[in-house]
């Protein structure tokens, strides 16, 4: 079935926000493995339910062994769940119609070492059943998109560095303008320039309405690009956090000032309000200086806050971003306490979608 003919089932959704199209629906997904000599079963995934809306960038985070990779394996149809169901645009994940519109970058790209970078892209272009007439141009454009020069594209991939392989992997994942992109630690082993490039490409995907599932330990990256993030732990989705830019969630900022100014809590609060930011608390150091915590809506808000503080006579010497919300989620997990951030309920009971199953 051609990609464009994927049917969108009509359904009534009982989620917090209305859906334009079903996107990815995971219902009560359970996957167990046998462990050790005793053959004892453990739950890699335990009744996981979530939905990813069409066109959103959805992050999956969690500690090692949480079940993220198993979830990815099930979403991609590599693993068979013991129970539960996954549908992607109403189809089973291993449906060829879904795969025709899916791009995937594994954490560690394994490929035939004899291939050239260009040959590898051409091979996947053909496997994806994209038109042969545009193969050369598409592959050249894909190489350019991920910052690999044509000369590198003609070299065997055995000579590629880890970062180059990761870039090449991203290029193949984006061949043919997929509608669903699964990225497993995409920036792993990539140099800082590559990280910036990956972030920009993710932004482009987000802007073009591609549904992206991102598994990453780079929380700052996840926080920057994802609309929502699922926090997975012990095979369960513990929380789903909404991170949309412009949301009511504020960004923390820690500001330190030197001795010499008459800094009071009232002054700080007034300056923060003038800068459109929030004042949380302040501490005075013995040296006469001090530090305070503030909240700003975004980078621009943080800049306005700093300007307002300086204009109010606060001798600012340092401003550092507070730990991210996702970082706090992780830290709170480490402390074995409930996450202090607001979470969106993970309940999701979509109606049965006809003609689908995993």
């Amino acid at each position, binding site marked *: 079935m051609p990609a464009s003919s994927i049917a969108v089932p009509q359904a009534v959704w009982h989620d917090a926000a209305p859906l334009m199209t079903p996107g990815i629906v995971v219902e009560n997904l359970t996957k167990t493995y046998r462990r050790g000599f005793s053959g004892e079963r453990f739950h890699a995934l335990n009744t996981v339910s979530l939905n990813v809306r069409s066109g959103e960038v959805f992050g999956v985070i969690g500690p090692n062994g949480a079940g993220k990779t198993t979830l990815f394996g099930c979403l991609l149809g590599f693993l068979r769940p013991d129970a539960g169901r996954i549908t992607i645009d109403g189809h089973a994940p291993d449906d060829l119609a879904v795969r025709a519109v899916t791009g995937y970058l594994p954490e560690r790209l394994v490929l035939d070492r004899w291939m050239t970078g260009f040959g590898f892209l051409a091979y996947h272009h053909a*496997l994806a059943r994209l038109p042969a007439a545009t193969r050369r141009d598409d592959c050249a454009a894909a190489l350019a998109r991920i910052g690999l020069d044509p000369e590198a594209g003609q070299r065997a991939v055995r000579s590629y560095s880890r970062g180059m392989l990761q870039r090449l992997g991203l290029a193949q994942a984006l061949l043919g303008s997929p509608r669903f992109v699964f990225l497993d630690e995409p920036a792993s082993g990539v140099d800082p320039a590559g990280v910036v490039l990956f972030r920009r490409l993710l932004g482009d995907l987000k802007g073009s309405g591609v549904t992206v599932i991102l598994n990453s330990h780079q929380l700052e990256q996840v926080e920057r690009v994802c609309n929502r993030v699922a926090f997975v732990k012990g095979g369960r989705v513990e929380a789903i956090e909404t991170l949309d830019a412009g949301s009511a969630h504020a960004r923390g900022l820690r500001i330190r000032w030197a001795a010499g100014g008459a800094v009071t809590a009232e002054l700080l609060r007034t300056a923060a309000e003038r800068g459109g930011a929030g004042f949380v608390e302040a501490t005075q150091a013995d040296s006469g200086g001090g530090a305070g915590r503030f909240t700003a809506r975004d980078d621009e808000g943080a800049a306005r806050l700093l300007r307002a503080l300086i204009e109010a006579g606060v001798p600012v010497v340092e401003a550092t971003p507070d730990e991210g919300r996702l970082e706090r989620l992780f830290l709170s997990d480490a402390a074995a306490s409930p996450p202090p951030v607001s979470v969106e309920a993970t309940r999701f009971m979509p109606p049965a979608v006809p003609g689908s199953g995993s």
Partner: protein
Amino acid sequence: MNRELVIAFWRQRGSAAFRMAFLLLVFGFPLLMTAAMPGGGLGIVRDAVGITMVLAAGMIGQDVSSGVLQLLFARPVRRSEYVLSRWLSVAVAAGAIAVLQIALAWLILNARGAPQESGMVLLTMLQRVVEVIQITAVMAMFSSLVNGVGDLGLWFATTVVGGILQLAAQAKGWGWVGRVGAELNRIVGPDVGLVALMRGTGGWSDLVTTLSIAALALLIAVVLVNRKELSYATTG
């Protein structure tokens, strides 16, 4: 069948220096022997097992163990299509090389003054192709069972067990054990009997059995690969 998979597999095999060196050996050595002993006729280029083994070993298992299958199966490629493409890749390449070997042996024998009947040469070529079809299918089945080049081990183990059972049956007079041993050996070493069939001294059963084994082995390989969970989740 998937043309891209077939071509990629050929290129992969062609780029493996160690494998190509082995292929040269199993291809060239019988030709040298034919040149040295023309009295042996085409009998020296006895079978295509060596050629097929060199090309087939790890045809699926190496993809499983290396991890390239995840990326492949994320594409719109059916698993059955993958298995059949692998089988076709090996069968066509090994069949062509086996036929070329016989053709060269024929030329050598002609040059050495031991000409062979052309009809017999063509029949030998056809028989070799049918043998390759079965051996490749059985290797596809073994390769879908075990990772890496473990299929070679299974092939040797089956050959050895089959031989031992036949010997034991001879020594002890156990008919059914001998039959099992013969069947095992039949699975890994086809007996096409095409020459006998064409001469009217044999029946169709050998050819039918050969093709049945090939079809069954391919079916099993497809089922096994379809059921295979790709070891994506080793790290949880």
